[in-house]
């Protein structure tokens, strides 16, 4: 131990600090700054045409989309496209919330805009690749952001559609907790959408997956408990009537071919038809 301490003391006594070269520090700093500036400028020079390409492509294709959309709208209106289509598909199940002409015009416009965006992003991607020697961590998100925005829009639309469907269906089934059920479904889809968007953006990693699992499972469990406890009788009645209908259909050979006429009205009830 004494030997070790003696060695340490000797080392400290023998230590001579290195000569301070002020000029060399500034030289290193300015060199580092110069290199950094060079890197950023090189990246900007490499990326600038790409950014410009995005704007040019987007603007050009948006203008083309506007012209095409206006032309289609006028042409289809002139050809009475809506009336003809409605005449031909009077009872179609798929009924969008806009007229067919408007839908075609909008699809053509947004198709052109999307095409412009894709072309611009791919041009940007190519120019970014040339300057990839100097990576900037934010840039990869730009390309993913387009997909994420589309996912978000689609998810929100699906959530709203499903929420309305569930609300109306539940009200017509006379479920007292119709609004709660509708909200549950809406948030289920929104949580799923948010998780998909974050996953697409590669944000959060495992945290998002775990949080999504917990939230999704929680909502499903809540809804299952609500339905299971709140409408136990309704579900059992529904299942019983389904089983009865199935067994009724199983016996008569022509039951499917001919709708069964109703029995004469013996009791006071409502007959809608």
């Amino acid at each position, binding site marked *: 131990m004494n030997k070790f301490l003696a060695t340490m003391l000797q080392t400290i006594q023998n230590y001579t600090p290195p000569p301070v070269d002020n000029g060399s520090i500034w030289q290193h700093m300015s060199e580092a700054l110069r290199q950094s500036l060079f890197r950023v400028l090189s990246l900007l020079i490499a990326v600038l045409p790409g950014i410009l390409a995005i704007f040019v492509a987007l603007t050009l294709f948006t203008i083309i989309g506007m012209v095409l959309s206006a032309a289609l709208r006028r042409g289809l209106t002139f050809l009475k496209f809506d009336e003809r289509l409605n005449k031909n598909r*009077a009872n179609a199940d798929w009924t*969008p919330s806009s007229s067919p002409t408007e839908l075609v015009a909008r699809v053509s416009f947004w198709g052109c805009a999307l095409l412009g965006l894709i072309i611009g992003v791919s041009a940007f991607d190519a120019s970014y690749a040339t300057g990839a020697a100097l990576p900037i961590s934010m840039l990869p998100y730009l390309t993913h952001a387009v997909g994420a925005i589309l996912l978000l829009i689609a998810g929100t639309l699906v959530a709203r559609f499903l929420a309305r469907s569930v609300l109306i269906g539940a009200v017509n089934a*006379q479920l007292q907790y119709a609004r709660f059920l509708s909200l549950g479904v809406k948030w289920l889809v929104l949580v799923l959408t948010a998780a998909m968007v974050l996953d697409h953006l590669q944000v959060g990693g495992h945290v998002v997956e775990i949080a999504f699992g917990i939230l999704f499972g929680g909502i499903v469990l809540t809804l299952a408990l609500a339905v299971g406890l709140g409408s136990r009788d309704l579900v059992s009645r529904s299942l019983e009537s389904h089983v009865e209908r199935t067994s009724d259909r199983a016996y008569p050979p022509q039951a499917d071919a001919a709708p069964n*006429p109703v029995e004469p009205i013996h009791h*006071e*009830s409502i007959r809608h*038809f």
Partner: protein
Amino acid sequence: MATANSIPDTRSTPAPPKTGLLVSIAAMPPEQVESVFAGLIASFPADDLVIATPNDIAGTSYPNLRVVSTQATNAVWPVAPADFSDAYRIARERDARAILMLGPGSNSLAPSALRDLANAVLTSHSDLATPNYTLPPNAGMVNSAILYPLTRALFASPVRFPLAIDLGLSVRMAERMASAAQRTIALNQNDAILWPTNEALVAGLKIDEVDVGGRMLPQPAEPNINAILTLVTGSLFAEVEARAAFWQRPRRLQPERPPRPESHQVGRDIDIVPMVEAFRLAFSNLREIWSLVLAPNSLLGLKRLSIVEPSDFRMPENLWARIVFDFLVAYRVRTINRGHLLGALIPLYLAWVAGHINVIASGTSPETHIEAVAAAFEVDKPYIVSRWRWPDRFNS
């Protein structure tokens, strides 16, 4: 040079014997078929008849009847487009002068009703004979609430059952229905509902309404009232949309029809509380959706209605007319998804039914109330014409 002979050689195939009446009978159980045959034999000479039916007649007591076998349709609505198409094809093959189409459960029609329906097109030079059923007051509610008032107001049609399942058709009317059926079949819409009355009105063909007495109306194959109401109402709304150019023109109202036969009064023991409760539940949950469709005045009317006691519950006729018209406009401009729209109409329809039951339980005859509803629709026709043209304006 060989040329194709465009004129078919008809000498080799003997022409089938001329037929007076083709009777197209829908699929039904054997005992009902037997009963229909009995009614037909009692009303028409057997030589004058050709029966087109998918039913097996081997076991019946009428083996001498001329029967053409047809394919059974499995559509949701009892009369499918293929039935019209088949009926016209067979009528043309057999050179029939008229067609009598009988829906499921037509065994409950009296023989005289069959005779009157057929004679309306055979001898009275009408193109379409529609039955006027005498139903119990608690039956045919969708027809009374929506189908009849709406078609009467828009098409100026006096036909009480515009979607009847028993019809008398002249050959030219059958041809028109067959071509309409072919269009839907070509689009693979075998479940589509065709509207013979509107078809005849648009073509300017003559319509006769025949009182046929009581009838057991068949239950549609789809057991869910929500689905079938949506199907029928959606079909009528689509029909109205397709014929907008026709009904928007000012039309002369049909002359007053003699009073319709009254059905017996309904008892007071129908429980309307579940329907009123369904409406209240919908009012608290669907107000947001209704507000996209209905005019503010209508919403206010519904709010007032939601706090009325079941014993005093009654949907005012003009409010109901406005509601149906607003839903029709929303269907046209697609304010919301059409499936959602028609689903949101169901609780309002139930509210109308509850009110109707209350009205007739108070002593008013059902026909009087239904005529009052139809009159309210007629009075409000300028509203629908205006909103159809300028859908964004609520003329409340």
